[in-house]
């Protein structure tokens, strides 16, 4: 039912926590199931130097938060903002139907990067 990717990122999250004075905060809540992810980012020269999350929800959405943080960290904000929906979905691997809402949460979070006017 759950892929190893989801299980690992859920059971051993590496990027849980807060960033002091984050430069950017991405936040999304699924209107149906209520799952919520907030990711704080530290950015230097257009590069994401650190990403940490808080999440409330099912195992998959928590794993999603961790996967996204890992992916964001070390990448350029611009690059991330330009990632396609498919690319972002693919980060989560194979999902069963009841896990797919996490793809939307992930896409919504990353889309917020593009909506940012400017970043440091």
């Amino acid at each position, binding site marked *: 039912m*759950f892929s190893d990717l989801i*299980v690992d990122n*859920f*059971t051993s*999250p590496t990027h*849980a926590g*807060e960033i002091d004075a984050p430069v950017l905060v991405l936040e999304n809540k699924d209107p149906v*199931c*209520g*799952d*919520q992810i907030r990711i704080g980012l530290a950015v230097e020269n257009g590069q994401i130097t650190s990403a940490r*999350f*808080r*999440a*409330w*929800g*099912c*195992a998959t959405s*928590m794993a999603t938060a961790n996967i996204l943080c890992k992916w964001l960290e070390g990448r350029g904000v611009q690059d991330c903002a330009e990632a396609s929906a498919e690319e972002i979905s693919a980060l989560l691997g194979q999902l069963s139907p*009841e896990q797919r809402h996490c793809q939307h949460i992930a896409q919504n979070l990353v889309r917020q990067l593009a909506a940012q006017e400017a970043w440091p």
Partner: protein
Amino acid sequence: MTLKGYFDYNATTPLSDAVKAEMRHAMEVFANPSAAYPAAGPARALLAQARQNVADLIDAAPEQIFFTSCGTEGNNWALQASCAGAPGEAAIVTTAIEHDATLAAARALGQSQGRPVHVALPQSDGIVRADAVARASAGPVAVYSVMLANNETGAIQPVAEIAEIARDRAVPLHVDAVQAVGKMPVSVRALGCDCLSLSGHKFHGPKGVGAMYVRDPGTFAPMMIGGGQERGLRPGTENLIGIAGLSAAAAEARALMDPNAARNRENRKRILDGLRRQGVAFSINGPADDARILPNTLNLSFDGLRAEALAMRLAHLQGIAVSLGSACSTNKDRRHSHVLVAMGLPEARLVSALRISFGRYTSQADIDALVRALADGVAHLRQLSGAA
């Protein structure tokens, strides 16, 4: 036998050694029990013994026991048979906490027969008071269908009181005793019901075999028609191996009723004490009174997290199996347990509710590991969400 980490006894239980032995033996008893030749004798004897064992477990006579393929069949059959003779406008009266094999079946039957379905609500402790059932009984009633013990909360329902309402109105009463039988003493006579369904796999028998108690078989309608087995009330070549398992399970459940219940009560207390000692905040979904709850069931909510995530941590980190509401409903696109919703629990309690059910093979070490895992998981998830 040890069953480390298994806390989903209300979903299903493992076969006991005695049940396995009986089933292995029955694998060699193959002739058709309906046949006239002597080779059919052992099969007939097996059926007779099974009928007696099941009857003894629920204080019935063997002629009142009919083997079914599961609790679901029993509930569907009970509703259909009870409605068969009833006037078209007579309602099905049931409760909001029934298993879908009653509640959804009642709604479907009501719809197909143009029959009203009245649903009595529980109080916040998960018990449907008899007067709620009485209030739901406006107009003519075809059948009352009420469960004896709820699968999600363990709440024991006031069936004998409801039987009085049914008797006063001369309406048949069906009892879904699937969760109760084998875990608490059940007497069809004390309950005063007209029919009662049970399922073997809830008390260490095999899955896919159950039984129906029918007080007056002469006036009960079959749900299927066929070759005349079970005196025509439940045709189909008999599931001999399954029935042998049910038979052994019934005998054992009766013999071990008291020690099993005592162990369950101890384990229940050990979980609650353990969580309190570790300072884990939780609330109990179900009756506060220990006498009104199955001794093996605990339904708990842990605010600030989603139970699904907690269950997954338990499963993947500690190999612990618990349930989110009824196991049967995970197949479906349904968000909250209809039982907990009917109890009026707030959203935060609903999403964080976990059912822990245990039994015969649960050791104190299992309990202690569960408590540690819960304490750890709750703390972790609350921290992840920033709620800690």
